[in-house]
Protein backbone atom coordinates (compact mmCIF):
# COMPACT_ATOMS: atom_id res chain seq x y z
CA UNK A 1 0.00 0.00 0.00
CA UNK A 2 1.30 3.43 -0.98
CA UNK A 3 1.23 6.38 1.37
CA UNK A 4 -1.10 8.78 -0.32
CA UNK A 5 -0.24 12.33 0.76
CA UNK A 6 0.39 15.58 -1.00
CA UNK A 7 -0.13 19.31 -0.54
CA UNK A 8 0.67 20.89 2.82
CA UNK A 9 1.25 18.30 5.50
CA UNK A 10 1.78 19.47 9.06
CA UNK A 11 3.35 16.95 11.39
CA UNK A 12 2.39 17.46 15.03
CA UNK A 13 2.37 15.34 18.15
CA UNK A 14 3.46 15.25 21.73
CA UNK A 15 6.95 16.10 22.72
CA UNK A 16 9.36 13.37 21.60
CA UNK A 17 6.78 11.38 19.63
CA UNK A 18 9.22 11.13 16.71
CA UNK A 19 7.85 13.84 14.43
CA UNK A 20 11.19 14.78 12.94
CA UNK A 21 12.29 11.23 12.14
CA UNK A 22 8.87 10.61 10.55
CA UNK A 23 9.09 13.83 8.61
CA UNK A 24 12.52 13.14 7.16
CA UNK A 25 11.63 9.59 6.13
CA UNK A 26 8.25 10.62 4.76
CA UNK A 27 9.97 13.25 2.65
CA UNK A 28 12.33 10.65 1.22
CA UNK A 29 9.47 8.21 0.60
CA UNK A 30 7.45 10.77 -1.33
CA UNK A 31 10.47 12.03 -3.20
CA UNK A 32 11.14 8.46 -4.38
CA UNK A 33 7.51 8.32 -5.52
CA UNK A 34 8.32 11.23 -7.83
CA UNK A 35 6.93 14.19 -5.91
CA UNK A 36 8.69 17.48 -5.49
CA UNK A 37 9.21 17.82 -1.72
CA UNK A 38 10.16 20.61 0.68
CA UNK A 39 10.43 20.57 4.47
CA UNK A 40 10.34 23.46 6.90
CA UNK A 41 11.88 22.93 10.31
CA UNK A 42 9.50 24.73 12.63
CA UNK A 43 10.72 23.08 15.79
CA UNK A 44 11.49 26.19 17.78
CA UNK A 45 11.22 24.33 21.06
CA UNK A 46 13.76 21.56 20.90
CA UNK A 47 17.37 22.68 21.08
CA UNK A 48 18.96 19.50 19.62
CA UNK A 49 17.93 16.71 17.23
CA UNK A 50 16.06 18.79 14.70
CA UNK A 51 15.46 18.39 10.96
CA UNK A 52 18.28 20.84 10.34
CA UNK A 53 20.70 18.09 11.42
CA UNK A 54 19.79 16.08 8.32
CA UNK A 55 19.71 19.03 5.94
CA UNK A 56 22.74 18.07 3.88
CA UNK A 57 21.70 14.47 3.46
CA UNK A 58 18.22 15.53 2.35
CA UNK A 59 19.65 18.09 -0.02
CA UNK A 60 21.64 15.32 -1.72
CA UNK A 61 18.33 13.66 -2.54
CA UNK A 62 16.94 16.90 -3.92
CA UNK A 63 14.79 17.69 -0.90
CA UNK A 64 14.97 21.29 0.19
CA UNK A 65 14.94 22.00 3.91
CA UNK A 66 14.01 25.47 5.09
CA UNK A 67 15.86 26.22 8.30
CA UNK A 68 16.78 29.39 10.17
CA UNK A 69 19.67 31.38 8.66
CA UNK A 70 23.00 29.64 9.15
CA UNK A 71 24.37 31.90 11.85
CA UNK A 72 21.36 31.16 14.09
CA UNK A 73 21.19 27.42 13.40
CA UNK A 74 22.50 26.50 16.82
CA UNK A 75 21.14 29.56 18.55
CA UNK A 76 19.03 29.43 21.62
CA UNK A 77 16.56 31.68 19.87
CA UNK A 78 13.05 30.86 18.69
CA UNK A 79 13.58 32.03 15.16
CA UNK A 80 10.67 31.97 12.75
CA UNK A 81 11.95 32.65 9.28
CA UNK A 82 9.68 34.80 7.10
CA UNK A 83 10.53 32.36 4.26
CA UNK A 84 8.14 29.87 5.83
CA UNK A 85 5.05 31.95 5.16
CA UNK A 86 6.12 32.28 1.53
CA UNK A 87 6.61 28.57 1.24
CA UNK A 88 3.07 27.95 2.47
CA UNK A 89 1.67 30.48 0.02
CA UNK A 90 3.49 28.77 -2.86
CA UNK A 91 3.60 25.13 -1.79
CA UNK A 92 5.41 22.41 -3.72
CA UNK A 93 3.73 19.11 -4.54
CA UNK A 94 4.44 18.11 -0.97
CA UNK A 95 5.28 20.69 1.68
CA UNK A 96 6.08 19.20 5.06
CA UNK A 97 6.02 21.34 8.20
CA UNK A 98 7.90 19.69 11.04
CA UNK A 99 6.53 21.19 14.23
CA UNK A 100 7.82 21.25 17.80
CA UNK A 101 6.24 19.10 20.48
CA UNK A 102 2.96 19.50 22.35
CA UNK A 103 0.71 22.53 22.18
CA UNK A 104 3.71 24.76 22.82
CA UNK A 105 5.42 23.52 19.69
CA UNK A 106 2.52 24.47 17.46
CA UNK A 107 1.99 27.95 18.91
CA UNK A 108 3.96 29.19 15.95
CA UNK A 109 1.31 27.75 13.59
CA UNK A 110 -1.14 30.21 15.04
CA UNK A 111 1.38 32.94 14.21
CA UNK A 112 1.31 31.61 10.62
CA UNK A 113 -2.50 31.57 10.61
CA UNK A 114 -2.77 34.20 7.88
CA UNK A 115 -0.63 32.23 5.44
CA UNK A 116 -2.48 28.99 6.20
CA UNK A 117 -6.01 30.30 6.06
CA UNK A 118 -8.13 28.95 3.23
CA UNK A 119 -5.58 26.31 2.21
CA UNK A 120 -6.13 22.62 2.06
CA UNK A 121 -3.91 21.05 4.65
CA UNK A 122 -3.38 17.74 6.40
CA UNK A 123 -2.53 17.94 10.07
CA UNK A 124 -1.22 14.58 11.23
CA UNK A 125 -0.62 13.60 14.82
CA UNK A 126 2.34 11.30 15.44
CA UNK A 127 1.68 8.86 18.29
CA UNK A 128 4.20 6.71 20.11
CA UNK A 129 2.41 4.81 22.87
CA UNK A 130 5.78 4.13 24.54
CA UNK A 131 6.10 7.80 25.48
CA UNK A 132 4.84 9.34 28.72
CA UNK A 133 1.45 11.11 28.48
CA UNK A 134 0.47 9.17 25.30
CA UNK A 135 0.39 5.63 26.64
CA UNK A 136 -3.41 5.78 26.81
CA UNK A 137 -6.01 6.82 24.23
CA UNK A 138 -7.18 9.41 26.71
CA UNK A 139 -3.69 10.92 26.87
CA UNK A 140 -3.44 11.07 23.06
CA UNK A 141 -6.81 12.76 22.77
CA UNK A 142 -5.88 15.29 25.44
CA UNK A 143 -2.76 16.21 23.47
CA UNK A 144 -4.89 16.35 20.33
CA UNK A 145 -7.20 18.88 21.97
CA UNK A 146 -4.35 20.97 23.27
CA UNK A 147 -2.65 21.01 19.89
CA UNK A 148 -5.88 21.95 18.14
CA UNK A 149 -6.50 24.78 20.60
CA UNK A 150 -3.00 26.19 20.30
CA UNK A 151 -2.69 25.85 16.53
CA UNK A 152 -6.31 26.72 15.75
CA UNK A 153 -6.28 23.85 13.24
CA UNK A 154 -8.02 20.47 13.27
CA UNK A 155 -6.05 17.27 13.27
CA UNK A 156 -7.03 15.15 10.28
CA UNK A 157 -5.19 11.88 10.78
CA UNK A 158 -2.91 9.71 12.90
CA UNK A 159 0.57 8.34 12.27
CA UNK A 160 1.51 5.31 14.36
CA UNK A 161 5.15 5.54 15.43
CA UNK A 162 5.47 2.93 18.16
CA UNK A 163 9.12 2.43 19.02
CA UNK A 164 11.72 2.16 21.75
CA UNK A 165 14.47 3.19 19.32
CA UNK A 166 17.15 0.44 19.29
CA UNK A 167 15.25 -1.77 21.67
CA UNK A 168 12.06 -2.03 19.63
CA UNK A 169 10.84 -5.59 19.09
CA UNK A 170 8.45 -6.98 16.50
CA UNK A 171 5.97 -7.46 19.35
CA UNK A 172 6.20 -3.74 20.18
CA UNK A 173 5.34 -2.88 16.57
CA UNK A 174 2.22 -5.06 16.63
CA UNK A 175 1.17 -3.80 20.07
CA UNK A 176 1.66 -0.25 18.86
CA UNK A 177 -0.38 -0.95 15.76
CA UNK A 178 -3.27 -2.29 17.83
CA UNK A 179 -3.04 0.78 20.02
CA UNK A 180 -3.24 3.29 17.16
CA UNK A 181 -5.96 1.28 15.40
CA UNK A 182 -8.00 1.53 18.58
CA UNK A 183 -7.22 5.22 18.83
CA UNK A 184 -8.32 5.72 15.24
CA UNK A 185 -11.67 4.07 15.95
CA UNK A 186 -12.21 5.97 19.15
CA UNK A 187 -11.31 9.35 17.66
CA UNK A 188 -12.76 8.86 14.20
CA UNK A 189 -9.42 9.99 12.76
CA UNK A 190 -8.04 7.88 9.91
CA UNK A 191 -4.80 5.99 10.50
CA UNK A 192 -2.61 7.33 7.68
CA UNK A 193 0.30 4.96 8.13
CA UNK A 194 2.50 3.26 10.72
CA UNK A 195 6.29 3.24 10.86
CA UNK A 196 8.72 0.34 11.06
CA UNK A 197 12.47 0.68 11.48
CA UNK A 198 14.42 -0.62 8.49
CA UNK A 199 16.29 -3.19 10.57
CA UNK A 200 13.01 -4.74 11.83
CA UNK A 201 11.33 -4.86 8.44
CA UNK A 202 12.52 -8.36 7.45
CA UNK A 203 10.79 -9.81 10.50
CA UNK A 204 7.53 -7.97 10.00
CA UNK A 205 4.49 -9.53 8.37
CA UNK A 206 3.15 -6.65 6.32
CA UNK A 207 -0.26 -8.35 5.98
CA UNK A 208 -0.74 -7.64 9.67
CA UNK A 209 -1.55 -4.02 8.80
CA UNK A 210 -4.52 -2.54 7.00
CA UNK A 211 -2.73 0.77 6.48
CA UNK A 212 0.48 1.69 4.62
CA UNK A 213 3.87 1.29 6.30
CA UNK A 214 6.62 3.89 6.28
CA UNK A 215 10.13 2.51 6.52
CA UNK A 216 12.28 4.45 9.01
CA UNK A 217 15.98 4.83 8.42
CA UNK A 218 17.10 6.63 11.55
CA UNK A 219 18.81 9.92 10.92
CA UNK A 220 18.82 11.64 14.28
CA UNK A 221 21.34 9.51 16.09
CA UNK A 222 23.79 10.36 18.87
CA UNK A 223 27.41 10.87 17.80
CA UNK A 224 28.51 7.36 18.73
CA UNK A 225 26.12 5.78 16.24
CA UNK A 226 25.85 5.93 12.46
CA UNK A 227 22.71 6.99 10.70
CA UNK A 228 21.49 4.65 7.97
CA UNK A 229 22.16 5.98 4.50
CA UNK A 230 18.97 7.66 3.35
CA UNK A 231 19.67 6.80 -0.24
CA UNK A 232 19.65 3.06 0.48
CA UNK A 233 16.13 3.01 -0.89
CA UNK A 234 17.33 4.10 -4.27
CA UNK A 235 19.57 1.07 -4.69
Amino acid at each position, binding site marked *: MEIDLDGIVIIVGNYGSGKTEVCINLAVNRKMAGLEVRIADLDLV*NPYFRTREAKTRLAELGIEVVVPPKQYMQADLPILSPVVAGMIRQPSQLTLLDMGGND*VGVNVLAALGDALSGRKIHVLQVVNP*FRPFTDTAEGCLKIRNEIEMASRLSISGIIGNAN*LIDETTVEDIYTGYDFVSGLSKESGLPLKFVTVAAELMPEIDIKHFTCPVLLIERQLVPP*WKRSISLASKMK
Partner: protein
Amino acid sequence: MGKILMKGNEAIGEAAIRAGCLNYFAYPITPQSEVAEYLSRRMPEVGGVFLQGESEVAVSYMLFGASACGARVFTTSSSPGISLMSEGISYIAGAQCPAVFVNIMRGGPGLGGILPSQADYFQATKGGGHGDYRLLVMAPASVQEAVEMVMLAFPLAEKYRNPVMLLGDGLIGQMMEPVEFPDHLKSEPTNKDEWATNGMDTRGSNKRNLVKTLFLDAGKLNEHNLMLKAKYDRMKREEIRYELYNIESDYKALIVSYGTMSRVCKTAIDNMKDEGLEVGMVRPQTLFPFPENAVYEAASKESCKVVVSIEMSMGQMVEDVERCVKGKLPVKWYGKCGGDVPTPEEVVEAVKSFL
Protein backbone atom coordinates in the same frame (compact mmCIF):
# COMPACT_ATOMS: atom_id res chain seq x y z
CA MET B 1 5.47 -1.04 34.00
CA GLY B 2 7.71 -1.91 31.05
CA LYS B 3 10.12 0.33 29.30
CA ILE B 4 9.15 3.75 28.08
CA LEU B 5 10.95 6.14 25.80
CA MET B 6 12.11 9.28 27.57
CA LYS B 7 14.28 12.28 27.08
CA GLY B 8 17.05 12.56 29.64
CA ASN B 9 15.58 15.76 31.06
CA GLU B 10 12.11 14.27 31.52
CA ALA B 11 13.54 11.10 33.00
CA ILE B 12 15.53 13.11 35.54
CA GLY B 13 12.33 14.88 36.62
CA GLU B 14 10.40 11.63 36.90
CA ALA B 15 13.24 9.90 38.74
CA ALA B 16 13.27 12.62 41.38
CA ILE B 17 9.56 12.10 41.99
CA ARG B 18 10.14 8.36 42.33
CA ALA B 19 12.93 9.11 44.75
CA GLY B 20 10.32 10.81 46.90
CA CYS B 21 11.50 14.32 46.12
CA LEU B 22 8.37 16.39 45.67
CA ASN B 23 9.99 19.79 45.96
CA TYR B 24 11.45 21.37 42.85
CA PHE B 25 12.62 24.96 42.37
CA ALA B 26 14.25 26.16 39.16
CA TYR B 27 14.91 28.93 36.69
CA PRO B 28 14.62 28.23 32.92
CA ILE B 29 17.78 27.71 30.88
CA THR B 30 18.56 25.72 27.74
CA PRO B 31 19.34 22.80 27.37
CA GLN B 32 17.46 21.63 30.43
CA SER B 33 14.20 23.65 30.51
CA GLU B 34 12.32 20.42 29.77
CA VAL B 35 12.80 19.33 33.37
CA ALA B 36 10.85 22.39 34.55
CA GLU B 37 8.30 22.00 31.79
CA TYR B 38 7.79 18.32 32.61
CA LEU B 39 7.54 18.94 36.34
CA SER B 40 5.17 21.89 35.92
CA ARG B 41 2.69 19.23 34.72
CA ARG B 42 3.76 16.32 36.92
CA MET B 43 4.18 17.98 40.33
CA PRO B 44 0.50 19.01 40.56
CA GLU B 45 -0.45 15.39 39.74
CA VAL B 46 1.53 14.08 42.70
CA GLY B 47 0.79 16.96 45.08
CA GLY B 48 4.34 18.27 44.94
CA VAL B 49 5.84 21.74 44.87
CA PHE B 50 6.88 23.33 41.59
CA LEU B 51 8.16 26.87 41.69
CA GLN B 52 9.97 28.92 39.08
CA GLY B 53 12.25 31.17 41.11
CA GLU B 54 13.26 34.65 40.01
CA SER B 55 16.91 33.68 39.48
CA GLU B 56 19.30 30.83 40.11
CA VAL B 57 20.71 32.71 43.08
CA ALA B 58 17.24 32.74 44.61
CA VAL B 59 16.63 29.13 43.64
CA SER B 60 19.72 27.95 45.49
CA TYR B 61 18.46 29.64 48.66
CA MET B 62 14.96 28.26 48.19
CA LEU B 63 16.63 24.85 48.24
CA PHE B 64 18.67 25.82 51.30
CA GLY B 65 15.62 26.94 53.26
CA ALA B 66 13.50 23.95 52.31
CA SER B 67 16.30 21.49 52.96
CA ALA B 68 17.16 23.11 56.28
CA CYS B 69 13.68 22.30 57.51
CA GLY B 70 14.03 18.68 56.51
CA ALA B 71 12.44 18.50 53.04
CA ARG B 72 13.85 16.53 50.14
CA VAL B 73 14.72 19.11 47.49
CA PHE B 74 16.29 19.39 44.08
CA THR B 75 16.91 21.72 41.21
CA THR B 76 18.23 21.50 37.68
CA SER B 77 20.11 24.06 35.66
CA SER B 78 22.85 24.48 33.11
CA SER B 79 26.32 25.95 33.38
CA PRO B 80 25.66 29.73 33.73
CA GLY B 81 22.87 28.97 36.16
CA ILE B 82 25.08 26.67 38.25
CA SER B 83 27.63 29.48 38.49
CA LEU B 84 24.94 31.60 40.12
CA MET B 85 23.90 28.79 42.43
CA SER B 86 27.46 28.21 43.53
CA GLU B 87 27.15 30.72 46.32
CA GLY B 88 24.12 28.94 47.74
CA ILE B 89 25.84 25.58 47.30
CA SER B 90 28.72 26.72 49.51
CA TYR B 91 26.27 27.69 52.24
CA ILE B 92 24.31 24.46 51.91
CA ALA B 93 27.50 22.41 52.16
CA GLY B 94 28.74 24.50 55.09
CA ALA B 95 25.43 24.13 56.92
CA GLN B 96 25.40 20.40 56.10
CA CYS B 97 22.05 20.25 54.38
CA PRO B 98 21.16 17.56 51.86
CA ALA B 99 20.18 18.77 48.38
CA VAL B 100 20.49 17.52 44.82
CA PHE B 101 21.71 19.74 41.98
CA VAL B 102 21.63 18.65 38.35
CA ASN B 103 23.91 20.43 35.88
CA ILE B 104 23.14 19.71 32.22
CA MET B 105 26.31 21.33 30.95
CA ARG B 106 26.52 23.62 27.95
CA GLY B 107 29.51 25.36 26.42
CA GLY B 108 31.19 28.25 28.20
CA PRO B 109 32.75 30.45 29.44
CA GLY B 110 30.15 33.20 29.75
CA LEU B 111 27.01 32.62 27.73
CA GLY B 112 28.97 30.16 25.59
CA GLY B 113 26.47 28.10 23.61
CA ILE B 114 23.68 25.63 24.12
CA LEU B 115 25.41 22.54 22.75
CA PRO B 116 26.82 19.76 24.94
CA SER B 117 30.00 20.29 26.91
CA GLN B 118 31.91 18.92 29.90
CA ALA B 119 33.64 22.15 30.76
CA ASP B 120 32.23 22.40 34.29
CA TYR B 121 34.34 19.52 35.62
CA PHE B 122 36.52 21.82 37.71
CA GLN B 123 33.52 23.78 38.93
CA ALA B 124 31.77 20.61 40.08
CA THR B 125 34.69 18.73 41.56
CA LYS B 126 37.06 21.41 42.82
CA GLY B 127 35.05 24.39 43.83
CA GLY B 128 32.44 26.59 42.27
CA GLY B 129 31.66 28.33 45.50
CA HIS B 130 34.04 29.45 48.24
CA GLY B 131 35.44 27.54 51.16
CA ASP B 132 36.58 24.02 51.91
CA TYR B 133 33.67 21.98 50.69
CA ARG B 134 33.16 19.15 48.25
CA LEU B 135 30.20 17.91 46.31
CA LEU B 136 29.58 14.26 45.67
CA VAL B 137 29.52 14.33 41.86
CA MET B 138 28.03 11.64 39.65
CA ALA B 139 28.17 11.57 35.85
CA PRO B 140 25.64 9.45 33.92
CA ALA B 141 26.39 8.10 30.44
CA SER B 142 22.83 7.13 29.50
CA VAL B 143 19.28 8.11 30.29
CA GLN B 144 18.83 4.92 32.30
CA GLU B 145 21.92 5.66 34.32
CA ALA B 146 20.73 9.23 34.90
CA VAL B 147 17.55 7.79 36.42
CA GLU B 148 19.49 5.43 38.66
CA MET B 149 21.89 8.15 39.75
CA VAL B 150 19.09 10.59 40.59
CA MET B 151 17.49 7.92 42.74
CA LEU B 152 20.79 7.27 44.44
CA ALA B 153 21.57 10.96 44.83
CA PHE B 154 18.89 11.64 47.46
CA PRO B 155 19.86 8.89 49.89
CA LEU B 156 23.52 9.85 49.47
CA ALA B 157 22.79 13.54 50.06
CA GLU B 158 21.00 12.54 53.25
CA LYS B 159 23.63 10.02 54.34
CA TYR B 160 26.31 12.70 54.19
CA ARG B 161 24.10 15.75 54.75
CA ASN B 162 25.86 17.27 51.81
CA PRO B 163 24.84 18.48 48.35
CA VAL B 164 25.12 15.91 45.58
CA MET B 165 25.56 16.96 41.99
CA LEU B 166 24.60 15.10 38.86
CA LEU B 167 26.86 16.27 36.07
CA GLY B 168 25.41 15.51 32.65
CA ASP B 169 26.17 17.17 29.36
CA GLY B 170 23.51 18.61 27.06
CA LEU B 171 23.23 15.39 25.11
CA ILE B 172 22.30 13.37 28.19
CA GLY B 173 19.50 15.85 28.81
CA GLN B 174 18.28 16.01 25.24
CA MET B 175 18.63 12.48 23.96
CA MET B 176 15.84 9.93 24.07
CA GLU B 177 16.38 6.37 25.23
CA PRO B 178 14.19 3.60 26.57
CA VAL B 179 14.14 3.58 30.37
CA GLU B 180 12.76 1.51 33.16
CA PHE B 181 12.09 3.10 36.52
CA PRO B 182 13.09 1.32 39.70
CA ASP B 183 10.47 1.12 42.45
CA HIS B 184 9.71 4.22 44.42
CA LEU B 185 12.19 4.85 47.20
CA LYS B 186 10.52 4.19 50.50
CA SER B 187 12.92 6.08 52.70
CA GLU B 188 12.28 9.43 54.34
CA PRO B 189 15.16 11.75 55.14
CA THR B 190 16.47 10.12 58.33
CA ASN B 191 17.54 11.69 61.61
CA LYS B 192 16.37 15.08 60.45
CA ASP B 193 14.91 15.83 63.87
CA GLU B 194 18.47 16.04 65.17
CA TRP B 195 19.40 18.99 63.02
CA ALA B 196 16.55 20.33 60.86
CA THR B 197 14.62 23.45 61.78
CA ASN B 198 11.36 21.63 61.23
CA GLY B 199 9.63 23.19 64.24
CA MET B 200 10.00 22.13 67.87
CA ASP B 201 6.39 20.96 67.94
CA THR B 202 6.90 18.86 64.82
CA ARG B 203 9.66 16.94 66.50
CA GLY B 204 8.10 17.06 69.96
CA SER B 205 11.09 18.68 71.56
CA ASN B 206 11.84 21.93 73.38
CA LYS B 207 15.39 22.00 72.14
CA ARG B 208 15.77 24.32 69.21
CA ASN B 209 17.79 23.42 66.12
CA LEU B 210 20.09 25.87 64.42
CA VAL B 211 21.25 25.72 60.80
CA LYS B 212 24.20 28.03 60.27
CA THR B 213 27.58 28.52 58.67
CA LEU B 214 29.14 31.29 60.80
CA PHE B 215 31.85 30.28 63.26
CA LEU B 216 33.51 33.33 64.79
CA ASP B 217 35.86 31.30 66.91
CA ALA B 218 38.89 30.24 64.87
CA GLY B 219 39.22 26.94 66.71
CA LYS B 220 35.56 26.12 66.18
CA LEU B 221 35.73 26.83 62.45
CA ASN B 222 38.78 24.63 62.13
CA GLU B 223 36.95 21.87 63.99
CA HIS B 224 33.95 22.29 61.74
CA ASN B 225 36.15 22.01 58.65
CA LEU B 226 37.89 18.93 60.05
CA MET B 227 34.51 17.35 60.54
CA LEU B 228 33.53 18.19 56.94
CA LYS B 229 36.85 16.77 55.74
CA ALA B 230 36.14 13.55 57.60
CA LYS B 231 32.90 13.27 55.62
CA TYR B 232 34.69 13.79 52.32
CA ASP B 233 37.29 11.21 53.30
CA ARG B 234 34.51 8.79 54.08
CA MET B 235 33.03 9.43 50.61
CA LYS B 236 36.42 8.49 49.17
CA ARG B 237 36.28 5.19 51.02
CA GLU B 238 32.65 4.32 50.40
CA GLU B 239 31.27 5.99 47.32
CA ILE B 240 33.68 5.55 44.43
CA ARG B 241 31.91 4.16 41.39
CA TYR B 242 33.31 3.40 37.96
CA GLU B 243 33.02 1.10 34.96
CA LEU B 244 35.84 -0.76 33.19
CA TYR B 245 35.75 -1.48 29.46
CA ASN B 246 37.93 -3.93 27.50
CA ILE B 247 40.16 -4.11 30.53
CA GLU B 248 40.89 -7.86 30.22
CA SER B 249 42.66 -7.32 26.91
CA ASP B 250 46.36 -6.50 26.60
CA TYR B 251 45.58 -2.91 25.81
CA LYS B 252 48.26 -0.60 24.48
CA ALA B 253 46.48 2.56 25.59
CA LEU B 254 44.10 3.39 28.40
CA ILE B 255 41.30 5.92 27.93
CA VAL B 256 39.73 7.72 30.86
CA SER B 257 36.43 9.25 29.85
CA TYR B 258 32.97 9.89 31.31
CA GLY B 259 29.39 10.75 30.30
CA THR B 260 28.48 11.13 26.64
CA MET B 261 32.16 11.20 25.70
CA SER B 262 32.66 7.69 27.10
CA ARG B 263 30.00 6.32 24.75
CA VAL B 264 31.84 7.72 21.76
CA CYS B 265 35.02 6.17 23.18
CA LYS B 266 33.37 2.76 23.47
CA THR B 267 32.50 2.81 19.79
CA ALA B 268 36.07 3.92 19.04
CA ILE B 269 37.48 1.11 21.19
CA ASP B 270 35.29 -1.45 19.36
CA ASN B 271 36.45 -0.09 16.02
CA MET B 272 40.12 -0.26 17.06
CA LYS B 273 39.62 -3.82 18.28
CA ASP B 274 38.37 -4.74 14.81
CA GLU B 275 41.58 -3.32 13.42
CA GLY B 276 43.61 -5.32 15.95
CA LEU B 277 44.48 -2.47 18.31
CA GLU B 278 43.45 -3.06 21.92
CA VAL B 279 42.50 -0.06 24.04
CA GLY B 280 41.02 -0.17 27.53
CA MET B 281 38.89 2.36 29.37
CA VAL B 282 38.08 3.47 32.89
CA ARG B 283 34.81 5.37 33.03
CA PRO B 284 34.42 7.28 36.28
CA GLN B 285 30.76 7.29 37.38
CA THR B 286 31.66 9.40 40.38
CA LEU B 287 33.91 12.35 39.55
CA PHE B 288 34.27 13.19 43.21
CA PRO B 289 35.30 10.90 44.77
CA PHE B 290 37.47 10.07 41.76
CA PRO B 291 38.34 6.39 41.09
CA GLU B 292 42.00 6.96 41.90
CA ASN B 293 43.04 3.36 42.48
CA ALA B 294 41.13 2.05 39.48
CA VAL B 295 42.97 4.47 37.20
CA TYR B 296 46.31 3.70 38.85
CA GLU B 297 45.84 -0.04 38.57
CA ALA B 298 44.63 0.09 34.98
CA ALA B 299 47.61 2.26 34.08
CA SER B 300 49.91 -0.28 35.72
CA LYS B 301 49.19 -2.98 33.16
CA GLU B 302 52.42 -4.03 31.46
CA SER B 303 51.09 -3.75 27.89
CA CYS B 304 49.85 -0.18 28.43
CA LYS B 305 52.04 2.58 27.01
CA VAL B 306 49.96 5.72 27.41
CA VAL B 307 46.93 7.06 29.28
CA VAL B 308 44.59 9.45 27.46
CA SER B 309 41.98 11.59 29.14
CA ILE B 310 39.25 12.27 26.60
CA GLU B 311 36.77 14.95 27.54
CA MET B 312 34.58 17.67 26.07
CA SER B 313 36.69 20.36 27.69
CA MET B 314 40.11 21.83 27.14
CA GLY B 315 41.70 19.43 29.62
CA GLN B 316 40.21 19.44 33.12
CA MET B 317 39.82 15.83 34.21
CA VAL B 318 43.28 15.15 32.79
CA GLU B 319 44.73 16.84 35.89
CA ASP B 320 43.08 14.22 38.09
CA VAL B 321 44.23 11.46 35.77
CA GLU B 322 47.82 12.71 35.97
CA ARG B 323 47.56 12.76 39.73
CA CYS B 324 46.36 9.16 39.82
CA VAL B 325 48.87 7.77 37.31
CA LYS B 326 51.66 9.14 39.52
CA GLY B 327 54.13 9.52 36.70
CA LYS B 328 54.04 5.83 35.76
CA LEU B 329 53.10 6.55 32.16
CA PRO B 330 52.74 9.59 29.94
CA VAL B 331 49.27 11.14 30.33
CA LYS B 332 47.74 12.89 27.31
CA TRP B 333 44.62 14.87 26.69
CA TYR B 334 42.29 14.89 23.73
CA GLY B 335 39.05 16.80 23.50
CA LYS B 336 36.82 19.39 21.93
CA CYS B 337 34.68 21.98 23.56
CA GLY B 338 32.03 24.22 22.15
CA GLY B 339 29.42 21.87 20.88
CA ASP B 340 30.85 19.35 18.46
CA VAL B 341 31.14 16.02 20.21
CA PRO B 342 34.29 14.27 18.91
CA THR B 343 33.40 11.41 16.57
CA PRO B 344 34.62 7.82 17.06
CA GLU B 345 36.99 8.38 14.09
CA GLU B 346 38.54 11.44 15.73
CA VAL B 347 39.03 9.50 18.96
CA VAL B 348 40.75 6.66 17.07
CA GLU B 349 43.02 9.10 15.32
CA ALA B 350 43.91 10.87 18.59
CA VAL B 351 44.69 7.62 20.42
CA LYS B 352 46.87 6.38 17.56
CA SER B 353 48.77 9.65 17.46
CA PHE B 354 49.84 9.13 21.07
CA LEU B 355 51.17 5.59 20.49
